[in-house]
């Protein structure tokens, strides 16, 4: 096992199909799509449950159930039902990102000092204003940690797309295994790991930027 595949310049040429940059781009595309869809679904539900306190039973159980579903198994089931394509992959990955976002949105709002929320109501804010101007900004650090954990999981797991004929960095793993090219498998594993760390760094900077400076002191 060696690093030949990773450091071979021919595998980094952007134009050739199946080169590392192209696989990286398609991988990121699956990750971004899954995170976007997952956020659109999970964030409103999590915020609603956290804000109203209603249905927390659902939040906790849906979260735990989602976490326990094996992505590869779910993907195979979806492919059997829907056929090949991007849709089954997106469904499987979205199911993976929903639980951390949902539970962190819920937990972020629940963990707030209720006196602050009361004070917001006391100065005459409407429920929507309480949510968007007080609860959401203050819950952002917890929410962002949930989002980051979802992003890390989906970067690593998006490799399953290659198991059903799509692209992404999983191609290096699956094709490498299929032709006994362990140098390629190693390259895939390293690129995925580096991508996960870089993405987490980007999100960490984003978090610093969007979280109110007033909250930083207490953390």
């Amino acid at each position: 096992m060696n690093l030949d595949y990773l450091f071979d310049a021919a595998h980094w040429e952007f134009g050739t199909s199946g080169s590392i940059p192209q696989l990286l781009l398609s991988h990121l595309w699956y990750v971004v799509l899954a995170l976007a869809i997952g956020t659109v679904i999970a964030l409103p539900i999590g915020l609603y449950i956290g804000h109203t306190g209603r249905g927390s039973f659902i939040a906790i159980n849906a979260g735990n159930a989602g976490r326990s579903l094996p992505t590869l198994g779910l993907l195979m089931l979806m492919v059997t039902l829907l056929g090949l394509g991007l849709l089954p992959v997106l469904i499987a990955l979205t199911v993976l990102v929903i639980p951390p976002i949902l539970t962190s949105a819920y937990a972020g709002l629940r963990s707030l000092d209720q006196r602050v929320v009361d004070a917001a109501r006391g100065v005459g804010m409407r429920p929507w204003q309480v949510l968007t101007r007080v609860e959401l900004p203050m819950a952002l650090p917890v929410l962002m940690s949930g989002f980051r954990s979802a992003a890390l999981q989906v970067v690593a797991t998006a490799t399953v797309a290659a198991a059903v004929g799509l692209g992404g960095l999983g191609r290096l793993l699956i094709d490498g295994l299929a032709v006994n090219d362990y140098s390629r498998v190693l390259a895939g594993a390293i690129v995925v790991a580096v991508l996960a760390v870089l993405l987490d760094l980007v999100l960490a900077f984003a978090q610093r930027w969007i979280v109110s400076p007033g909250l930083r002191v207490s953390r």
Partner: protein
Amino acid sequence: MMRFGRFTAVTAALALTVALTACGADEDPLANDNGGGSAAPGTITIGSANFAESELLAEIYSQAIEAKGVQVKRQFNIGARELYLKALQDGSIDLLPEYNGALLSALTPGGAPEGVSKPEDVLGALKKVLPAGTEVLEQSPAEDKDTLTVTQETATKYSLKSIEDLKPVAKDLVIGAGPEWQERYQGLKGLEAVYGVKFKEFKPLDAGGPLTVNALVKGQIQVGNIFSTDSSITVNKFVVLEDPKSLYLAENIIPLIRTTANNPTVSGALNAVSAKLTTENLTTTLAKVQVDKQDTASVAKAWLTENGLV
């Protein structure tokens, strides 16, 4: 106080690591209870890969050897070839069913050489690359090999009988196969070189597994790589295209055994099995396991009884 706390934690963590490493160090999950190697003297440990046909064949081998009064230990379902070959070399298992072509490709750097595809040629090439301390017995005429398979409708629409008929129409067809097909000669390269067949698109799926079958049935691929003994071919009335120029490697079933475990009783029993095994009777027997969901042990027993081997 703080410093003491951290020191204690580090010490505890170190102690735990040492303790865990100590118990994990010489534990091989494949090793037997009495410390690796074969179990009782004279016992043969039989392994298999992690798919139904390999397990069925290993069970047939087991019962055939047991019928000769030899003790057998079953260690089936070991996963990928890399794993079970390692287990065979370190003596965790003594015997398992193999396929001559696939084994040759796995043992040859860069895959099986071009032009070597007929059963005798493959066996000859294979004997040269076998790992030290292992040998193969007689190969059976039964083959579980790569095929290009299409649905009945596709076959009728383009009047396809053999791979040669694909040449004029392949530009409109999508092929699905294991990812290795993109690179190895007995895949897309050979199809183009030997038959002049070039497909519109290649979809890397599983090697002859449920994904390929499903995509074929749903029409997302028109041509699929399915193995010749797969019961999905008869279940779905698929048409297997002939390979008149022998592009695909022979995949005769062959017992791979540790030299130390081989003796006339064992080889006699296994060679008798190989002689009776055919692609047809293996296909129907495997269908009893895969389609009718019968128990592997009783299916193996029935096959051995039918062929007068027990």
